[in-house]
Protein backbone atom coordinates (compact mmCIF):
# COMPACT_ATOMS: atom_id res chain seq x y z
CA UNK A 1 0.00 0.00 0.00
CA UNK A 2 1.15 3.50 -0.75
CA UNK A 3 -0.25 6.61 0.92
CA UNK A 4 0.24 10.16 -0.25
CA UNK A 5 -1.69 13.32 0.62
CA UNK A 6 -4.33 11.38 2.48
CA UNK A 7 -4.99 9.00 -0.46
CA UNK A 8 -4.12 5.32 -0.11
CA UNK A 9 -3.49 2.98 -3.01
CA UNK A 10 -3.57 -0.83 -3.14
CA UNK A 11 -0.67 -1.89 -5.35
CA UNK A 12 -0.50 -4.90 -7.66
CA UNK A 13 2.65 -5.17 -9.74
CA UNK A 14 1.40 -7.27 -12.63
CA UNK A 15 4.76 -8.10 -14.18
CA UNK A 16 7.90 -9.16 -12.27
CA UNK A 17 10.77 -11.60 -12.83
CA UNK A 18 13.55 -13.52 -11.21
CA UNK A 19 16.06 -14.09 -14.00
CA UNK A 20 19.58 -15.43 -14.36
CA UNK A 21 21.64 -13.71 -17.05
CA UNK A 22 25.02 -14.56 -15.53
CA UNK A 23 27.82 -15.81 -17.76
CA UNK A 24 27.44 -19.32 -16.26
CA UNK A 25 23.90 -19.55 -17.66
CA UNK A 26 24.56 -18.30 -21.21
CA UNK A 27 24.07 -20.90 -23.93
CA UNK A 28 25.30 -18.68 -26.76
CA UNK A 29 26.02 -15.09 -27.84
CA UNK A 30 22.27 -14.34 -28.03
CA UNK A 31 21.91 -14.88 -24.29
CA UNK A 32 24.56 -12.25 -23.70
CA UNK A 33 22.97 -9.90 -26.24
CA UNK A 34 19.60 -10.33 -24.55
CA UNK A 35 20.67 -9.50 -20.99
CA UNK A 36 22.80 -6.61 -22.30
CA UNK A 37 19.78 -5.25 -24.14
CA UNK A 38 17.74 -5.46 -20.90
CA UNK A 39 20.53 -3.67 -19.04
CA UNK A 40 20.53 -0.86 -21.62
CA UNK A 41 16.78 -0.43 -21.10
CA UNK A 42 17.39 -0.30 -17.35
CA UNK A 43 20.25 2.22 -17.57
CA UNK A 44 18.59 4.38 -20.17
CA UNK A 45 15.20 4.81 -18.49
CA UNK A 46 15.98 4.66 -14.74
CA UNK A 47 16.79 7.72 -12.62
CA UNK A 48 20.54 7.74 -11.98
CA UNK A 49 20.22 6.83 -8.29
CA UNK A 50 18.16 3.73 -9.18
CA UNK A 51 20.69 2.19 -11.59
CA UNK A 52 22.16 -1.16 -10.50
CA UNK A 53 25.61 -2.44 -11.33
CA UNK A 54 25.76 -5.03 -14.07
CA UNK A 55 26.63 -8.02 -11.88
CA UNK A 56 23.69 -7.48 -9.56
CA UNK A 57 21.46 -6.94 -12.59
CA UNK A 58 22.35 -10.30 -14.14
CA UNK A 59 21.20 -12.12 -10.98
CA UNK A 60 19.60 -10.76 -7.79
CA UNK A 61 17.56 -13.66 -6.40
CA UNK A 62 14.39 -14.00 -4.35
CA UNK A 63 15.49 -12.26 -1.16
CA UNK A 64 16.35 -9.08 -2.98
CA UNK A 65 13.08 -9.25 -4.91
CA UNK A 66 11.07 -9.54 -1.68
CA UNK A 67 12.79 -6.46 -0.31
CA UNK A 68 12.52 -4.31 -3.46
CA UNK A 69 8.85 -5.13 -3.93
CA UNK A 70 7.32 -5.57 -0.50
CA UNK A 71 9.63 -3.77 1.96
CA UNK A 72 10.88 -0.79 -0.05
CA UNK A 73 8.42 -0.87 -2.94
CA UNK A 74 4.85 -0.49 -1.49
CA UNK A 75 3.69 -3.53 -3.48
CA UNK A 76 0.84 -5.58 -1.96
CA UNK A 77 0.81 -8.35 -4.54
CA UNK A 78 3.01 -9.17 -7.54
CA UNK A 79 2.62 -11.51 -10.48
CA UNK A 80 5.54 -13.41 -11.97
CA UNK A 81 5.57 -13.57 -15.74
CA UNK A 82 7.71 -16.37 -17.16
CA UNK A 83 10.29 -15.64 -19.86
CA UNK A 84 11.98 -18.94 -20.57
CA UNK A 85 14.18 -18.29 -23.65
CA UNK A 86 15.56 -21.82 -23.51
CA UNK A 87 17.36 -21.39 -26.84
CA UNK A 88 19.57 -18.71 -25.27
CA UNK A 89 20.11 -19.96 -21.71
CA UNK A 90 21.33 -23.24 -20.21
CA UNK A 91 18.82 -23.22 -17.36
CA UNK A 92 16.30 -20.79 -18.86
CA UNK A 93 16.30 -17.03 -18.36
CA UNK A 94 13.34 -16.74 -15.98
CA UNK A 95 14.00 -18.96 -12.93
CA UNK A 96 10.86 -21.07 -12.83
CA UNK A 97 11.45 -23.09 -9.67
CA UNK A 98 12.85 -20.22 -7.65
CA UNK A 99 9.94 -17.96 -8.56
CA UNK A 100 7.33 -20.68 -8.13
CA UNK A 101 8.86 -21.72 -4.79
CA UNK A 102 8.75 -18.13 -3.57
CA UNK A 103 5.12 -17.82 -4.64
CA UNK A 104 4.29 -21.04 -2.74
CA UNK A 105 5.86 -19.64 0.42
CA UNK A 106 4.10 -16.27 0.06
CA UNK A 107 0.75 -17.00 -1.59
CA UNK A 108 -0.71 -13.80 -0.13
CA UNK A 109 1.96 -11.73 -1.88
CA UNK A 110 2.93 -13.59 -5.05
CA UNK A 111 1.24 -15.28 -7.98
CA UNK A 112 3.22 -17.36 -10.45
CA UNK A 113 2.28 -17.37 -14.13
CA UNK A 114 3.94 -20.01 -16.25
CA UNK A 115 4.53 -20.15 -20.00
CA UNK A 116 3.71 -22.55 -22.81
CA UNK A 117 4.59 -22.82 -26.46
CA UNK A 118 1.93 -24.28 -28.79
CA UNK A 119 4.64 -25.46 -31.17
CA UNK A 120 5.22 -28.41 -28.81
CA UNK A 121 1.88 -29.79 -29.97
CA UNK A 122 0.26 -32.66 -28.04
CA UNK A 123 3.22 -33.16 -25.68
CA UNK A 124 3.11 -29.48 -24.70
CA UNK A 125 -0.61 -29.72 -24.00
CA UNK A 126 0.03 -32.60 -21.63
CA UNK A 127 2.77 -30.55 -19.94
CA UNK A 128 0.39 -27.59 -19.62
CA UNK A 129 -2.12 -29.82 -17.82
CA UNK A 130 0.57 -31.00 -15.39
CA UNK A 131 1.85 -27.44 -14.85
CA UNK A 132 -1.65 -26.09 -14.28
CA UNK A 133 -2.27 -28.80 -11.69
CA UNK A 134 1.05 -28.38 -9.86
CA UNK A 135 1.23 -24.59 -10.04
CA UNK A 136 -2.50 -23.84 -9.73
CA UNK A 137 -2.13 -21.50 -12.69
CA UNK A 138 -4.47 -18.54 -13.12
CA UNK A 139 -2.47 -17.05 -15.94
CA UNK A 140 0.18 -17.70 -18.55
CA UNK A 141 2.69 -15.52 -20.32
CA UNK A 142 3.15 -16.08 -24.03
CA UNK A 143 6.04 -14.92 -26.14
CA UNK A 144 4.75 -15.21 -29.68
CA UNK A 145 7.99 -14.03 -31.25
CA UNK A 146 10.19 -16.65 -29.59
CA UNK A 147 12.53 -18.61 -31.80
CA UNK A 148 11.87 -22.34 -31.78
CA UNK A 149 13.71 -24.68 -34.13
CA UNK A 150 13.03 -23.47 -37.64
CA UNK A 151 10.09 -21.39 -36.53
CA UNK A 152 10.56 -17.67 -35.94
CA UNK A 153 7.38 -17.07 -34.03
CA UNK A 154 3.71 -17.94 -34.23
CA UNK A 155 0.33 -16.25 -34.29
CA UNK A 156 -2.27 -16.72 -31.57
CA UNK A 157 -4.97 -17.65 -34.05
CA UNK A 158 -3.05 -20.60 -35.54
CA UNK A 159 -4.55 -24.06 -35.08
CA UNK A 160 -2.32 -25.31 -32.25
CA UNK A 161 -2.44 -22.02 -30.41
CA UNK A 162 -6.25 -22.23 -30.43
CA UNK A 163 -6.05 -25.78 -29.01
CA UNK A 164 -3.95 -24.44 -26.13
CA UNK A 165 -6.27 -21.50 -25.48
CA UNK A 166 -9.23 -23.89 -25.38
CA UNK A 167 -7.30 -26.04 -22.92
CA UNK A 168 -6.70 -22.94 -20.77
CA UNK A 169 -10.46 -22.43 -20.55
CA UNK A 170 -10.85 -26.07 -19.46
CA UNK A 171 -8.12 -25.71 -16.85
CA UNK A 172 -9.41 -22.44 -15.40
CA UNK A 173 -6.49 -20.39 -16.67
CA UNK A 174 -8.21 -17.14 -17.54
CA UNK A 175 -5.50 -14.51 -17.92
CA UNK A 176 -3.40 -14.71 -21.07
CA UNK A 177 -0.52 -12.26 -21.00
CA UNK A 178 1.00 -11.73 -24.41
CA UNK A 179 4.36 -10.18 -25.11
CA UNK A 180 4.69 -8.78 -28.59
CA UNK A 181 8.33 -8.31 -29.36
CA UNK A 182 11.20 -8.61 -31.78
CA UNK A 183 11.96 -11.86 -33.50
CA UNK A 184 15.35 -13.41 -33.65
CA UNK A 185 15.07 -14.02 -37.36
CA UNK A 186 12.98 -12.21 -39.89
CA UNK A 187 9.31 -12.47 -40.32
CA UNK A 188 8.04 -11.02 -43.56
CA UNK A 189 5.42 -9.31 -41.50
CA UNK A 190 5.73 -7.14 -38.46
CA UNK A 191 6.59 -9.18 -35.36
CA UNK A 192 4.89 -6.58 -33.16
CA UNK A 193 1.63 -6.98 -35.05
CA UNK A 194 -1.25 -7.39 -32.57
CA UNK A 195 -3.94 -8.36 -35.10
CA UNK A 196 -3.93 -11.99 -33.94
CA UNK A 197 -5.06 -10.87 -30.48
CA UNK A 198 -8.11 -9.27 -32.06
CA UNK A 199 -9.16 -12.61 -33.54
CA UNK A 200 -8.73 -14.79 -30.44
CA UNK A 201 -10.19 -12.17 -28.09
CA UNK A 202 -13.39 -12.26 -30.15
CA UNK A 203 -13.50 -16.05 -30.20
CA UNK A 204 -12.63 -16.70 -26.54
CA UNK A 205 -14.64 -14.32 -24.41
CA UNK A 206 -13.95 -16.52 -21.34
CA UNK A 207 -10.32 -15.38 -21.45
CA UNK A 208 -8.71 -12.03 -20.68
CA UNK A 209 -5.89 -10.96 -22.96
CA UNK A 210 -3.37 -8.67 -21.35
CA UNK A 211 -1.08 -7.13 -23.94
CA UNK A 212 2.20 -6.43 -22.19
CA UNK A 213 3.90 -3.12 -22.84
CA UNK A 214 0.47 -1.91 -24.05
CA UNK A 215 1.38 -2.93 -27.54
CA UNK A 216 4.37 -0.57 -27.77
CA UNK A 217 5.81 0.04 -30.29
CA UNK A 218 2.45 -0.32 -32.06
CA UNK A 219 0.39 1.61 -29.55
CA UNK A 220 -2.14 2.76 -32.14
CA UNK A 221 -2.84 -0.74 -33.43
CA UNK A 222 -3.25 -2.00 -29.88
CA UNK A 223 -5.59 0.85 -28.94
CA UNK A 224 -7.66 0.18 -32.01
CA UNK A 225 -8.21 -3.52 -31.34
CA UNK A 226 -8.73 -2.88 -27.62
CA UNK A 227 -11.68 -0.60 -28.42
CA UNK A 228 -13.31 -3.47 -30.31
CA UNK A 229 -12.88 -6.10 -27.60
CA UNK A 230 -14.19 -6.13 -24.04
CA UNK A 231 -11.56 -8.61 -22.83
CA UNK A 232 -8.33 -6.93 -23.95
CA UNK A 233 -6.16 -5.15 -21.35
CA UNK A 234 -2.92 -3.19 -21.53
CA UNK A 235 0.06 -3.66 -19.17
CA UNK A 236 2.18 -0.57 -18.51
CA UNK A 237 5.54 -2.38 -18.29
CA UNK A 238 8.22 -0.50 -20.27
CA UNK A 239 5.86 2.43 -20.97
CA UNK A 240 5.73 3.72 -17.40
CA UNK A 241 9.46 4.52 -16.88
CA UNK A 242 9.03 7.31 -19.44
CA UNK A 243 7.42 9.14 -16.54
CA UNK A 244 10.99 10.00 -15.52
CA UNK A 245 12.88 10.52 -18.80
CA UNK A 246 10.08 11.95 -20.93
CA UNK A 247 7.08 12.92 -18.76
CA UNK A 248 5.36 14.78 -21.60
CA UNK A 249 5.58 11.72 -23.78
CA UNK A 250 4.26 9.55 -20.95
CA UNK A 251 1.34 11.97 -20.61
CA UNK A 252 0.44 11.34 -24.23
CA UNK A 253 0.69 7.55 -23.87
CA UNK A 254 -1.47 7.40 -20.76
CA UNK A 255 -3.81 9.98 -22.30
CA UNK A 256 -4.24 7.81 -25.39
CA UNK A 257 -4.75 4.65 -23.33
CA UNK A 258 -7.37 6.30 -21.13
CA UNK A 259 -9.14 7.61 -24.20
CA UNK A 260 -9.10 4.40 -26.22
CA UNK A 261 -9.17 1.52 -23.75
CA UNK A 262 -10.30 3.24 -20.54
CA UNK A 263 -9.35 3.30 -16.88
CA UNK A 264 -10.61 -0.21 -16.11
CA UNK A 265 -8.26 -1.99 -18.48
CA UNK A 266 -4.83 -0.55 -17.76
CA UNK A 267 -2.51 -2.46 -15.41
CA UNK A 268 0.50 -1.14 -13.52
CA UNK A 269 3.73 -3.15 -13.97
CA UNK A 270 7.36 -2.49 -13.15
CA UNK A 271 8.79 -5.40 -15.17
CA UNK A 272 11.10 -5.84 -12.16
CA UNK A 273 14.12 -5.97 -12.28
CA UNK A 274 14.07 -3.97 -15.48
CA UNK A 275 12.90 -1.23 -13.13
CA UNK A 276 12.17 -1.17 -9.40
CA UNK A 277 8.58 -0.39 -8.41
CA UNK A 278 9.12 2.19 -5.65
CA UNK A 279 10.05 5.17 -7.80
CA UNK A 280 7.53 4.26 -10.49
CA UNK A 281 4.67 4.21 -7.95
CA UNK A 282 5.77 7.45 -6.25
CA UNK A 283 6.00 9.28 -9.53
CA UNK A 284 2.81 7.88 -10.97
CA UNK A 285 0.84 9.02 -7.92
CA UNK A 286 2.41 12.49 -8.27
CA UNK A 287 1.91 12.55 -12.02
CA UNK A 288 -0.53 14.83 -13.76
CA UNK A 289 -1.23 15.64 -17.41
CA UNK A 290 0.51 18.97 -18.15
CA UNK A 291 -1.95 21.87 -18.21
CA UNK A 292 -1.16 22.87 -21.78
CA UNK A 293 -2.17 19.40 -23.05
CA UNK A 294 -5.82 20.35 -23.17
CA UNK A 295 -6.61 17.39 -25.40
CA UNK A 296 -6.47 15.10 -22.34
CA UNK A 297 -8.50 15.31 -19.16
CA UNK A 298 -6.58 15.35 -15.85
CA UNK A 299 -6.05 11.92 -14.27
CA UNK A 300 -8.07 11.40 -11.10
CA UNK A 301 -6.97 9.62 -7.90
CA UNK A 302 -9.61 6.97 -8.52
CA UNK A 303 -8.21 6.29 -11.99
CA UNK A 304 -4.78 5.91 -10.43
CA UNK A 305 -6.21 3.49 -7.83
CA UNK A 306 -7.61 1.30 -10.56
CA UNK A 307 -4.44 1.34 -12.63
CA UNK A 308 -2.08 0.77 -9.70
CA UNK A 309 -3.89 -2.22 -8.31
CA UNK A 310 -7.66 -2.57 -8.38
CA UNK A 311 -7.86 -3.64 -12.03
CA UNK A 312 -5.31 -6.43 -11.64
CA UNK A 313 -6.82 -7.46 -8.29
CA UNK A 314 -10.13 -8.00 -10.08
CA UNK A 315 -8.51 -10.14 -12.79
CA UNK A 316 -6.73 -12.34 -10.24
CA UNK A 317 -9.35 -12.36 -7.46
CA UNK A 318 -6.91 -10.73 -5.07
CA UNK A 319 -8.56 -9.67 -1.82
CA UNK A 320 -8.46 -5.88 -1.42
CA UNK A 321 -8.91 -4.48 2.12
CA UNK A 322 -12.29 -2.76 2.37
CA UNK A 323 -10.83 0.68 3.03
CA UNK A 324 -8.77 0.52 -0.18
CA UNK A 325 -11.62 -0.41 -2.48
CA UNK A 326 -13.55 2.10 -4.52
CA UNK A 327 -17.19 2.67 -3.80
CA UNK A 328 -19.25 0.83 -6.37
CA UNK A 329 -19.81 1.29 -9.25
CA UNK A 330 -16.33 1.04 -10.65
CA UNK A 331 -14.85 -2.34 -9.89
CA UNK A 332 -17.54 -4.52 -11.35
CA UNK A 333 -19.07 -2.36 -14.03
CA UNK A 334 -16.60 -1.63 -16.76
CA UNK A 335 -16.73 1.92 -18.03
CA UNK A 336 -16.65 2.07 -21.82
CA UNK A 337 -13.74 4.19 -23.02
CA UNK A 338 -14.55 7.41 -24.88
CA UNK A 339 -12.61 6.22 -27.92
CA UNK A 340 -14.48 2.91 -27.95
CA UNK A 341 -17.84 4.67 -27.99
CA UNK A 342 -16.84 6.86 -30.90
CA UNK A 343 -15.22 4.04 -32.81
CA UNK A 344 -18.26 1.79 -32.78
CA UNK A 345 -20.39 3.53 -35.46
CA UNK A 346 -17.57 3.36 -38.01
Amino acid at each position, binding site marked *: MYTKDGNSYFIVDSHVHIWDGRASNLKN*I*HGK*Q*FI*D*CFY*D*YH*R*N*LSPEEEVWDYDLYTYYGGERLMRDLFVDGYVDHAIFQATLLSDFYVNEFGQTEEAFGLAQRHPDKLTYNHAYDPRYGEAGLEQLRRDADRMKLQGVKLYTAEWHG*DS*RGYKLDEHWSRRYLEECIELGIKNIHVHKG*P*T*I*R*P*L*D*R*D*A*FDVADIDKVATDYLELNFIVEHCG*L*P*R*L*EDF*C*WIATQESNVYGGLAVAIP*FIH*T*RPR*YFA*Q*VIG*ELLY*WIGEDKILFASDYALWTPRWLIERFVDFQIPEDMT*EYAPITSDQKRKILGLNAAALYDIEVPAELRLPVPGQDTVEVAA*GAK*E*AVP*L
Partner: protein
Amino acid sequence: MTATAVSLQAEIIAALATVTDPELDQPITELGFVRSVAIEDDGVTVHLRLPTAFCSPNFAYLMASDALDALRSVDDIGQVRVLLDDHHDSGKINAGLAANAGYTGTFGSEVDDSLDELRTTFLRKAHTAAMERVVTTLLNRGMVQADAIYRLTLRDLPAGREKAALLRRRFALGLSTCPNGRVIVDDEGHALDPQAAPMRLRFARSVRISMEGNAHFCRGLLATRYNDHGTTTTQFTNTRTRGPQ
Protein backbone atom coordinates in the same frame (compact mmCIF):
# COMPACT_ATOMS: atom_id res chain seq x y z
CA MET B 1 41.39 17.64 -48.19
CA THR B 2 40.71 18.49 -51.81
CA ALA B 3 37.51 20.06 -53.06
CA THR B 4 36.63 16.77 -54.77
CA ALA B 5 37.04 14.86 -51.53
CA VAL B 6 34.86 17.34 -49.64
CA SER B 7 32.16 17.15 -52.25
CA LEU B 8 32.25 13.34 -52.35
CA GLN B 9 31.83 13.26 -48.57
CA ALA B 10 28.90 15.67 -48.82
CA GLU B 11 27.32 13.59 -51.56
CA ILE B 12 27.66 10.43 -49.47
CA ILE B 13 25.97 12.09 -46.49
CA ALA B 14 23.24 13.43 -48.75
CA ALA B 15 22.67 9.96 -50.20
CA LEU B 16 22.52 8.33 -46.77
CA ALA B 17 20.15 11.07 -45.56
CA THR B 18 17.56 9.82 -48.05
CA VAL B 19 17.43 6.50 -46.18
CA THR B 20 14.86 6.48 -43.39
CA ASP B 21 14.07 4.10 -40.58
CA PRO B 22 10.64 2.92 -41.71
CA GLU B 23 9.34 2.59 -38.16
CA LEU B 24 10.44 6.05 -37.08
CA ASP B 25 10.20 7.89 -40.39
CA GLN B 26 13.47 9.70 -39.68
CA PRO B 27 16.75 9.67 -41.68
CA ILE B 28 19.38 7.19 -40.46
CA THR B 29 21.93 10.02 -40.51
CA GLU B 30 19.96 11.97 -37.88
CA LEU B 31 19.30 8.88 -35.78
CA GLY B 32 23.02 8.15 -35.40
CA PHE B 33 22.74 4.82 -37.23
CA VAL B 34 25.66 5.62 -39.56
CA ARG B 35 28.68 4.67 -37.49
CA SER B 36 31.46 5.33 -39.98
CA VAL B 37 32.20 6.16 -43.59
CA ALA B 38 35.59 5.27 -45.07
CA ILE B 39 36.47 6.55 -48.52
CA GLU B 40 39.13 4.35 -50.05
CA ASP B 41 40.85 4.05 -53.43
CA ASP B 42 38.48 1.45 -54.80
CA GLY B 43 35.28 2.64 -53.18
CA VAL B 44 33.46 3.33 -49.93
CA THR B 45 32.81 1.29 -46.79
CA VAL B 46 29.91 2.30 -44.54
CA HIS B 47 29.24 0.75 -41.14
CA LEU B 48 25.73 0.98 -39.71
CA ARG B 49 24.71 0.39 -36.09
CA LEU B 50 21.35 0.00 -34.36
CA PRO B 51 19.99 0.58 -30.83
CA THR B 52 19.87 -3.11 -29.87
CA ALA B 53 21.15 -6.46 -31.08
CA PHE B 54 17.51 -7.48 -31.45
CA CYS B 55 16.17 -4.69 -33.62
CA SER B 56 13.85 -6.41 -36.08
CA PRO B 57 15.99 -7.98 -38.78
CA ASN B 58 13.51 -7.12 -41.51
CA PHE B 59 13.82 -3.39 -40.77
CA ALA B 60 17.58 -3.74 -40.33
CA TYR B 61 17.82 -5.35 -43.75
CA LEU B 62 15.61 -2.67 -45.33
CA MET B 63 17.79 0.16 -44.05
CA ALA B 64 21.06 -1.51 -45.01
CA SER B 65 19.90 -2.37 -48.51
CA ASP B 66 18.37 1.10 -49.00
CA ALA B 67 21.74 2.58 -47.99
CA LEU B 68 23.48 0.38 -50.54
CA ASP B 69 21.09 1.52 -53.28
CA ALA B 70 21.36 5.20 -52.33
CA LEU B 71 25.17 5.12 -52.32
CA ARG B 72 25.39 3.39 -55.68
CA SER B 73 23.70 6.40 -57.25
CA VAL B 74 26.61 8.68 -56.25
CA ASP B 75 28.94 9.43 -59.21
CA ASP B 76 32.52 8.11 -59.05
CA ILE B 77 31.94 6.39 -55.75
CA GLY B 78 33.43 3.07 -56.86
CA GLN B 79 32.66 -0.14 -54.97
CA VAL B 80 30.06 0.32 -52.23
CA ARG B 81 30.24 -1.83 -49.11
CA VAL B 82 27.58 -1.53 -46.40
CA LEU B 83 28.05 -3.49 -43.18
CA LEU B 84 25.70 -3.79 -40.22
CA ASP B 85 27.55 -4.02 -36.89
CA ASP B 86 26.63 -5.72 -33.60
CA HIS B 87 23.32 -7.22 -34.69
CA HIS B 88 22.29 -10.77 -33.89
CA ASP B 89 22.07 -11.42 -37.62
CA SER B 90 25.01 -9.26 -38.76
CA GLY B 91 26.81 -12.17 -40.42
CA LYS B 92 23.90 -13.20 -42.56
CA ILE B 93 22.80 -9.68 -43.48
CA ASN B 94 26.32 -8.56 -44.39
CA ALA B 95 26.93 -11.63 -46.55
CA GLY B 96 23.59 -11.07 -48.28
CA LEU B 97 24.34 -7.41 -48.97
CA ALA B 98 27.81 -8.18 -50.35
CA ALA B 99 26.33 -10.76 -52.71
CA ASN B 100 23.37 -8.58 -53.75
CA ALA B 101 21.23 -11.50 -52.69
CA GLY B 102 18.07 -9.54 -51.88
CA TYR B 103 15.92 -10.21 -48.83
CA THR B 104 14.72 -13.65 -49.83
CA GLY B 105 18.19 -14.60 -51.08
CA THR B 106 19.74 -13.46 -47.82
CA PHE B 107 17.42 -15.28 -45.47
CA GLY B 108 16.42 -18.19 -47.71
CA SER B 109 13.78 -20.49 -46.29
CA GLU B 110 13.29 -18.28 -43.24
CA VAL B 111 11.06 -15.96 -45.24
CA ASP B 112 8.22 -16.51 -47.66
CA ASP B 113 7.84 -13.12 -49.18
CA SER B 114 9.48 -9.83 -50.06
CA LEU B 115 9.31 -6.84 -47.77
CA ASP B 116 7.04 -4.75 -50.02
CA GLU B 117 3.95 -5.16 -47.88
CA LEU B 118 5.83 -4.32 -44.70
CA ARG B 119 7.28 -1.23 -46.35
CA THR B 120 3.85 -0.08 -47.49
CA THR B 121 2.41 -0.52 -43.98
CA PHE B 122 5.00 1.82 -42.56
CA LEU B 123 4.78 4.35 -45.38
CA ARG B 124 1.07 4.55 -44.55
CA LYS B 125 1.80 5.13 -40.88
CA ALA B 126 4.30 7.85 -41.80
CA HIS B 127 1.71 9.52 -44.01
CA THR B 128 -0.96 9.30 -41.30
CA ALA B 129 1.35 10.90 -38.74
CA ALA B 130 2.38 13.69 -41.15
CA MET B 131 -1.29 14.40 -41.90
CA GLU B 132 -2.06 14.67 -38.18
CA ARG B 133 0.81 17.11 -37.62
CA VAL B 134 -0.34 19.61 -40.26
CA VAL B 135 -3.99 19.53 -39.24
CA THR B 136 -3.25 19.79 -35.51
CA THR B 137 -0.97 22.77 -36.18
CA LEU B 138 -3.78 24.55 -38.03
CA LEU B 139 -6.28 23.70 -35.27
CA ASN B 140 -3.92 24.98 -32.58
CA ARG B 141 -3.39 28.24 -34.46
CA GLY B 142 -7.13 28.71 -34.90
CA MET B 143 -6.76 28.60 -38.67
CA VAL B 144 -9.47 25.97 -39.06
CA GLN B 145 -12.50 24.97 -37.04
CA ALA B 146 -12.76 21.36 -35.87
CA ASP B 147 -15.95 20.77 -37.89
CA ALA B 148 -14.35 22.03 -41.11
CA ILE B 149 -11.17 19.96 -41.17
CA TYR B 150 -12.65 17.52 -43.68
CA ARG B 151 -12.68 20.38 -46.27
CA LEU B 152 -9.02 21.34 -45.90
CA THR B 153 -7.07 21.13 -49.14
CA LEU B 154 -3.33 20.99 -49.64
CA ARG B 155 -3.36 24.62 -50.86
CA ASP B 156 -4.75 25.70 -47.45
CA LEU B 157 -1.60 24.49 -45.70
CA PRO B 158 1.07 27.10 -44.93
CA ALA B 159 4.39 26.38 -46.65
CA GLY B 160 6.99 24.85 -44.39
CA ARG B 161 8.59 21.69 -43.09
CA GLU B 162 5.37 19.96 -42.05
CA LYS B 163 3.69 20.54 -45.39
CA ALA B 164 6.79 19.41 -47.28
CA ALA B 165 6.91 16.26 -45.15
CA LEU B 166 3.25 15.50 -45.88
CA LEU B 167 3.75 15.98 -49.64
CA ARG B 168 6.77 13.66 -49.56
CA ARG B 169 4.78 10.92 -47.80
CA ARG B 170 1.90 11.31 -50.25
CA PHE B 171 4.29 11.08 -53.18
CA ALA B 172 5.91 7.95 -51.71
CA LEU B 173 2.50 6.27 -51.49
CA GLY B 174 1.39 7.42 -54.93
CA LEU B 175 -1.33 9.69 -53.51
CA SER B 176 -2.30 12.92 -55.22
CA THR B 177 -0.22 16.01 -54.44
CA CYS B 178 -2.56 18.32 -56.38
CA PRO B 179 -3.18 21.58 -54.42
CA ASN B 180 -6.93 20.94 -54.63
CA GLY B 181 -6.57 17.52 -52.99
CA ARG B 182 -8.11 17.04 -49.56
CA VAL B 183 -5.67 16.85 -46.65
CA ILE B 184 -7.61 14.33 -44.56
CA VAL B 185 -7.76 11.18 -46.63
CA ASP B 186 -7.72 7.46 -45.95
CA ASP B 187 -4.81 5.15 -46.78
CA GLU B 188 -5.90 5.00 -50.42
CA GLY B 189 -6.18 8.79 -50.74
CA HIS B 190 -10.00 8.98 -50.65
CA ALA B 191 -11.53 12.07 -49.06
CA LEU B 192 -13.56 11.52 -45.89
CA ASP B 193 -16.99 12.89 -45.07
CA PRO B 194 -17.54 15.46 -42.28
CA GLN B 195 -18.41 12.77 -39.71
CA ALA B 196 -15.50 10.45 -40.43
CA ALA B 197 -12.75 13.06 -40.62
CA PRO B 198 -12.50 13.85 -36.87
CA MET B 199 -12.23 10.13 -36.04
CA ARG B 200 -9.51 9.71 -38.65
CA LEU B 201 -7.64 12.60 -37.07
CA ARG B 202 -8.09 11.16 -33.59
CA PHE B 203 -6.68 7.81 -34.68
CA ALA B 204 -3.88 9.55 -36.58
CA ARG B 205 -2.84 11.17 -33.32
CA SER B 206 -2.12 7.79 -31.75
CA VAL B 207 -0.14 6.77 -34.82
CA ARG B 208 1.97 9.91 -34.48
CA ILE B 209 2.48 9.42 -30.73
CA SER B 210 3.43 5.79 -31.25
CA MET B 211 6.05 6.66 -33.89
CA GLU B 212 7.49 9.45 -31.78
CA GLY B 213 7.66 7.13 -28.80
CA ASN B 214 9.59 4.57 -30.80
CA ALA B 215 12.05 7.28 -31.78
CA HIS B 216 12.54 8.20 -28.09
CA PHE B 217 13.27 4.55 -27.32
CA CYS B 218 15.63 4.07 -30.23
CA ARG B 219 17.62 7.26 -29.73
CA GLY B 220 17.91 6.63 -25.99
CA LEU B 221 18.96 3.01 -26.33
CA LEU B 222 21.48 3.80 -29.04
CA ALA B 223 23.11 6.46 -26.86
CA THR B 224 23.20 4.08 -23.88
CA ARG B 225 24.53 1.18 -25.93
CA TYR B 226 27.37 3.15 -27.49
CA ASN B 227 27.86 5.46 -24.52
CA ASP B 228 28.00 8.56 -26.70
CA HIS B 229 25.44 10.73 -24.89
CA GLY B 230 23.19 11.16 -27.84
CA THR B 231 25.74 12.42 -30.33
CA THR B 232 25.01 11.30 -33.83
CA THR B 233 28.38 12.05 -35.33
CA THR B 234 29.57 9.78 -38.08
CA GLN B 235 33.26 8.99 -38.13
CA PHE B 236 34.78 9.86 -41.50
CA THR B 237 38.11 8.70 -42.91
CA ASN B 238 39.45 9.36 -46.37
CA THR B 239 42.46 7.43 -47.62
CA ARG B 240 41.69 7.87 -51.28
CA THR B 241 44.75 8.79 -53.38
CA ARG B 242 43.23 8.24 -56.78
CA GLY B 243 39.81 7.80 -58.29
CA PRO B 244 38.25 4.34 -58.49
CA GLN B 245 38.52 2.51 -61.78
